[in-house]
C-alpha cells in the first residue's frame, strides 16, 4: 500500500468535501462552482503528470491577499464573522493545496478543514449538509488513520537519513503488509467510526442542547438570503414580498376529526397578520391601535389553552405547524381558532376581535405547535368564547375611542371606513354591484346582500384585473397618486397585496367591514409525509369581510394566475424534490430540534412503554404484552405449557447444534487450508476431506508430522520411501485427497469404502 499516495488523495478529498459542504451550508452555488474549479485544478497543478507545487513566495503573497480579503469581508461587506472566517479558511486551504506540502502543511490543512466544518455546522441545519458532514466524517476518519501511518513512515525515514553516512542513499521505508490490508483497514475504520458515532449519538441523546440556546434563530440569522416572504405589514410603495426562493418555511398538516384531510386539490390560507388600518402617508396596511387594546395574554397550562367551547355538531379541524426557519412572533392560525397546543410556547396573546395570536413567552425555537379551529362559515355553527375571553370583549376602553358618530359602537366601525378618494371608489363599487342588480348604502351596518356584494366585487376584480408581480417603480413610489387608486383606476394589474387592498377599499367604500390578511397559501401537498409544504414564494395577502356578524375569508386575486404562480413541479424531479423535502423534514424534526424537552419526551415515552398503569394512566405497550403473555399462560393448560417449553428447548438445542456444526466445519476448513474458497465449497470439501484430518492426526500421534513446507504428497512419498509396506495406505489416501481437493472428484461410495479400509489398515499397522 502506498501510504503517501493514498494519503494525498484522501486529504484532497477531505478538503474538497469540506469546502463544498461549507458552500452548501452557506447556500452559495457560485462560490461552490469557483471553489470546485480552483480546487480541482490544484490536483492537476500539483499532482498531475508534470505537476509541481507553486513556489512558497507566491503562496505567502496570496495568503496576505486572503488576509486583506477577510478584513474587507468583515468591515466593508459586513459579512457575519463566522461566515467570513469560513471564506478565509476556504481560501487558505486552497492555497495550501497549491503549495509544497510537508507534514506540517498537511496538518494545517486538516485542522483548517475541521475548523471550517465546525463553523459550517453552526450555520446550516439542512439535511444535505448533514449528509455532507457524515461523508466528511468518514473521509476524515480514514485520513487521520492514514496520516498516522504516514507520520510513522516519515519519522522513521527522517531518523534513518539523520543516522546514515550518506543520507541520499537512504530509501523511504517500504510499508510491509500482510494480505488483506485494505479489507482490515476498512473494517478498522468502520469499527472506529461506529464506536465514535455511537458515543456521539449517546452524548447527543443524553446531553442535548439546552432550551435556552438560540440555535435555530442563530442558524437562520446566517442565511440572510432566505426571505421569509411573509410580512406583518403591507407597504404598497415596495415590491410585494413574493420571493423567487423556493425555500420551505413551514410544514402544515391538517386533520379533521383525527383524520388527515390534506390533498393536493385542497389549498389553505393560514393567517399571520391581520391589518385593519391603511396609513395614507406611508401607504402601509398596519394593525390599528384600537384593536391592539384588546390583546389579552394567556398561559398555556399543560401545554395548551382552550379559548372557546365548540357548539354541538360542529366539526373541528386540527392543524400542526412546523417551522423550518425562524419563527416570527405571529403564530400562523386559521379563523375561528379555539385551542392551541405547544410544548415550546408558555404564553400567548390572543385578540378576539381580529383573532390574531402572538407568542409572548416561550422558546425562541418554536418549531412546532398545533391548533384547532372550526369552519363556522359553511356549517353555520360555531363556537362560543370561554368566559375569560368574553371578559376581554367587555373591558373596552371607551374613553380612548376615536371620534366616531354618536350612538355607534366603535366595534361597528372597526375596519369599515375608507378615506382616500372615497367618492371615486364608492362610485366604482356601486357600478360593480349595480351590474349585478345589487345596491347598498354606505352607512348601513349590514344588509342581506352583503355576501352577494362581496362576491360580486371579488368576481369583478378577478375578471377585469390582471395578476402581476411587477412592483412599483421609483416614479410610482414618489407619485402623489395612491397605489391602491392607481391599481383600481389606471394600471388594473398588480400583485396579491394590491388586489387585497383594492378589494378592501371597494368594500369599505360601501360600508362593509373588511380587513387585509397576510400569511401563506398552502397548496403544495407532500403525499409522502402527509403535510403541506409552504415556501417563501407562497406568501400571500387576502381579505376577511364581516357578513352577518361572521368574518368570511375572500381571496380576490385571480385564482388561475395565482395557481400558476404557485404551481408545483411534477414528474420525476417533483417526486425527488418531494422525497428530499420529506427526509429533510424528518431530519429537522428528529435531529436539529432535539433539545432538552425532546430528550425528556423520549425518556418519558420509553418509560411509558413499561408503565404498569398503577397511577391510573394507560399501561405501556411492553407491560401490556407482558400481562397478555402471563394471561395466556394462565389461560392454557399446564400440559400445553410443558409441550411449548419442550418445543422451545428442542429448537434451542437444534440451533446450538447448528452453530457447533458450523464452528466445527470452519475449523476443519482451516485445517485443510480451504479458507480462501467460497463458503459453500468450504463446507462441502470439509465434509468430504475429514478423513485426511483423521489421517494426519493418526500419523502425528505416532510421531510423523508433516512439515509446513511439505506438500501432502511429498510427505506421503517420504513415508513410503522409509517403509513402503507400512505406509502404503498413506499414499493411497493422499491420492484420494488430491482427487477430491484438486481433481473435483466426489467422495462416492467406492472411494469411501477405500478410505475406510485404508484408514483401518493404517491404524492396525501403526499400532502393531
Amino acid at each position, binding site marked *: 500500500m502506498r501510504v503517501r499516495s493514498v494519503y494525498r488523495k484522501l486529504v484532497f478529498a477531505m478538503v474538497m468535501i469540506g469546502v463544498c459542504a461549507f458552500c452548501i451550508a452557506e447556500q452559495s452555488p457560485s462560490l461552490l462552482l469557483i471553489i470546485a474549479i480552483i480546487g480541482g485544478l490544484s490536483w492537476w497543478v500539483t499532482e498531475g503528470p508534470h505537476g509541481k507545487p507553486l513556489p512558497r513566495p507566491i503562496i505567502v503573497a496570496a495568503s496576505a491577499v486572503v488576509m486583506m480579503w477577510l478584513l474587507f469581508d468583515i468591515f466593508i461587506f459586513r459579512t457575519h464573522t463566522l461566515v467570513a472566517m469560513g471564506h478565509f479558511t476556504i481560501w487558505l486551504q486552497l492555497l495550501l493545496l497549491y503549495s509544497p506540502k510537508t507534514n506540517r502543511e498537511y496538518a494545517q490543512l486538516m485542522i483548517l478543514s475541521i475548523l471550517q466544518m465546525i463553523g459550517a455546522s453552526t450555520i446550516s441545519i439542512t439535511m444535505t449538509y448533514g449528509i455532507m458532514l457524515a461523508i466528511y466524517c468518514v473521509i476524515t476518519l480514514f485520513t487521520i*488513520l492514514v496520516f*498516522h501511518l504516514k507520520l510513522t513512515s516519515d519519522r522513521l525515514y527522517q531518523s534513518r537519513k539523520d543516522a546514515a553516512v550518506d543520507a541520499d542513499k537512504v530509501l523511504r521505508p517500504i510499508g510491509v503488509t500482510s494480505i488483506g490490508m485494505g479489507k*482490515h483497514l476498512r473494517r*478498522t475504520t468502520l469499527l472506529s467510526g461506529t*464506536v465514535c458515532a455511537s458515543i456521539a449519538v449517546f452524548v447527543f441523546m443524553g446531553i442535548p442542547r439546552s432550551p435556552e440556546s438560540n440555535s435555530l434563530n442563530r442558524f437562520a440569522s446566517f442565511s440572510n438570503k432566505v426571505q421569509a416572504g411573509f410580512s406583518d405589514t403591507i407597504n404598497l410603495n415596495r415590491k410585494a414580498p413574493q420571493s423567487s426562493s423556493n425555500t420551505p418555511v413551514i410544514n402544515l398538516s391538517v386533520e379533521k376529526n383525527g383524520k388527515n384531510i390534506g390533498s393536493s386539490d385542497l389549498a389553505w390560507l393560514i393567517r399571520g397578520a391581520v391589518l385593519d388600518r391603511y396609513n395614507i402617508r406611508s401607504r402601509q396596511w398596519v394593525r390599528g391601535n384600537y384593536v391592539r387594546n384588546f390583546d389579552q395574554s394567556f398561559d398555556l397550562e399543560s401545554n395548551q389553552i382552550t379559548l372557546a367551547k365548540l357548539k354541538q355538531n360542529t366539526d373541528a379541524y386540527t392543524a400542526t405547524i412546523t417551522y423550518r426557519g425562524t419563527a416570527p412572533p405571529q403564530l400562523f392560525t386559521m379563523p375561528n381558532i379555539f385551542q392551541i397546543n405547544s410544548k415550546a410556547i408558555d404564553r400567548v396573546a390572543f385578540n378576539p376581535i381580529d383573532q390574531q395570536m402572538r407568542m409572548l413567552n416561550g422558546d425562541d425555537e418554536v418549531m412546532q405547535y398545533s391548533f384547532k379551529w372550526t369552519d363556522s362559515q359553511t356549517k353555520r355553527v360555531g363556537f362560543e368564547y370561554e368566559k375569560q375571553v368574553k371578559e376581554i370583549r367587555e373591558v373596552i376602553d371607551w374613553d380612548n375611542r376615536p371620534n366616531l358618530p354618536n350612538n355607534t359602537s366603535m366595534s361597528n366601525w372597526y375596519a369599515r371606513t375608507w378615506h382616500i378618494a372615497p367618492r371615486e371608489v364608492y362610485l366604482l363599487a356601486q357600478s360593480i354591484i349595480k351590474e349585478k342588480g345589487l345596491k347598498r348604502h354606505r352607512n348601513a351596518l349590514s344588509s342581506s346582500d352583503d355576501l352577494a356584494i362581496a362576491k360580486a366585487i371579488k368576481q369583478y376584480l378577478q375578471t377585469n384585473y390582471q395578476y402581476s408581480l411587477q412592483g412599483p417603480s421609483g416614479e410610482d413610489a414618489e407619485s402623489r397618486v395612491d397605489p391602491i387608486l392607481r391599481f383600481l383606476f389606471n394600471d388594473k394589474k398588480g400583485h396579491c397585496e394590491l388586489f387585497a387592498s383594492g378589494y378592501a377599499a371597494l368594500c369599505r367604500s360601501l360600508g362593509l367591514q373588511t380587513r387585509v390578511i397576510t400569511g401563506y397559501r398552502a397548496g403544495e401537498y407532500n403525499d409522502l409525509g402527509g403535510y403541506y409544504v409552504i415556501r417563501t414564494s407562497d406568501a400571500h395577502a387576502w381579505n376577511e369581510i364581516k357578513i352577518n356578524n361572521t368574518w368570511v375569508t375572500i381571496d380576490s386575486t385571480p385564482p388561475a394566475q395565482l395557481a400558476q404562480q404557485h404551481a408545483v413541479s411534477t414528474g420525476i424531479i417533483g417526486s425527488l424534490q418531494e422525497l428530499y423535502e420529506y427526509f429533510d423534514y424528518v431530519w429537522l424534526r428528529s435531529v436539529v430540534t432535539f433539545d432538552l424537552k425532546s430528550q425528556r419526551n423520549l425518556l418519558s415515552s420509553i418509560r411509558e412503554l413499561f408503565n404498569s398503569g398503577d397511577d391510573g394512566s394507560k399501561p405501556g405497550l411492553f407491560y401490556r404484552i407482558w400481562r397478555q403473555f402471563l394471561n395466556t399462560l394462565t389461560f392454557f393448560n399446564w400440559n400445553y405449557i410443558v409441550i411449548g417449553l419442550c418445543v422451545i428447548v428442542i429448537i434451542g438445542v437444534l440451533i446450538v447444534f447448528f452453530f457447533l456444526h458450523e464452528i466445527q466445519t470452519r475449523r476443519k476448513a482451516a485445517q485443510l487450508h480451504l479458507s480462501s474458497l467460497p463458503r459453500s465449497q468450504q463446507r462441502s470439501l470439509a465434509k468430504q476431506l475429514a478423513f485426511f484430518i483423521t489421517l494426519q492426526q493418526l500419523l502425528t500421534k505416532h510421531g510423523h508430522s508433516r512439515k509446513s513446507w511439505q506438500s501432502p504428497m511429498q510427505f506421503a512419498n517420504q513415508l513410503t520411501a522409509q517403509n513402503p509396506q507400512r505406509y502404503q495406505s498413506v499414499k493411497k489416501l493422499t491420492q484420494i485427497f488430491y482427487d477430491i481437493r484438486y481433481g473435483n472428484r466426489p467422495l462416492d461410495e467406492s472411494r469411501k469404502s477405500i478410505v475406510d479400509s485404508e484408514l483401518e489398515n493404517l491404524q492396525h499397522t501403526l499400532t502393531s
Partner: protein
Amino acid sequence: MFGAFVVSLITAMLSLRNVTVTRLLPMHGIAGEQLVPRYRIHNRSKLGIFNLVVSEESTESEVKLNMLPTGWILFLGPNQALMAEAPCWPSERGKLSFNSLIISCSFPFGILKKVAFFEQEDEIIVYPHIYRLNRRVVGTLSRVNPEGSNNIERSGGTEEFFGLREYHTGDSIRLINWKQTARTGDMVVKEMTQPSPPQTMVQLDLSDLQINACKSENPDISEEQLTKLKEEAISLAASIICDAYMHGYKIGFACSGINAPTYQLHHSRPHRTNILEALASLDLHDTTSPDDTSSQTEATVLVTLTNTSPKLYQASNKLALSVQTLSQYITDAPVEDVLLDTTEEVIGGVA
C-alpha cells in the same frame, strides 16, 4: 475525542497479544556501512495489527550506532508472520551486542501506545571500514610479489610449456606433440605449468616505533588523533585484504605492536573472514612488548602510520602504505556488495 480515546483504549488492550519477535542478524557488519538486522514478527492472535514498530531497547557494546535499529510493519494480519528490516549504521568496528527488543503500536489515533518487550541477546561482528582501493594499489601488489611469477614451475597445469613426456592413456589428444611423435615414432605429449596465484602478506605495524615516529613527525598530535590514525590503518589493512582476496591472491596477515594472531598465506573465504574478524576484534590497548618478534614475517605489504616508513621499506622491495597518504590509495566509489558476502544471514548472531 472521547470516542477516539475509547477506540484507542480498546485497540491498545487487544493489540500485541500473542505476538512473537525473532531477531535475524547478518553474519557481520561493516563500520560506516548499512547494517540491516531483520525482525521476524509473528502475530498469532485473531486481530490484525497496523503500524507496528519494532526497535532495539539499547545496545551495550563498544560499537556506536547513530540510531537504534527500527523496523516498521504497516499491517500484520492475523496468524501471519512478516519480516521487518531495520537498517542502522555502525560507526566503529568491534562486537555489537543486542539485548532486548521493543515492539509498539499506537494505531489508530496515536493517543495511546501499547509496548511489549522481548529479551533476546545477540552479538554481531562489525568489520573495520572497508575502503575501495585504487586499482593502482592492486597492480602494485602484484608487482611486489617476491615470487615474481604467476605460475608454479611444475607440470600438470594448462598455462605455459613445461616439457615433454611419453603419452599415457587418458592424456588429451590436444596435448600430443605431433612433430616429436613423428620424429621419435612414440607418442609424445606436452606438459604445461600450473597456475600460481599471487600472494600478499599484509603486516599492520602499530608498534611503539611507529607511534613514536608518528609523534616525532607531528608533535602536536593528540591521543584521539592517534587512535583515529590507528583505526584508519586497520581499515586500510582490511581493505587490502578484501581487495587482494577478490583478485584471487593468497592472503596472510600479521600485526606488530598489538596482540593479534598471525595468519599464514592462504586463499579462502573463511580465511579472509577470520582475518577480518581478527581486525575487527583488535584491541588497541592490548599491546605487545617491543621485544616480541613473533609477528615478524616476510610481509609484502606493510601498513604504517608514518610517511617516513615507506622509504625504509623501498629498499627491501616491499610495498609500504601509510595512512597519512590514505587518500592516494582509495577512490570515492562505494564498496560494492560483491566485495563482501553481506547477504548471508544467521539466526541468533555470529555463526
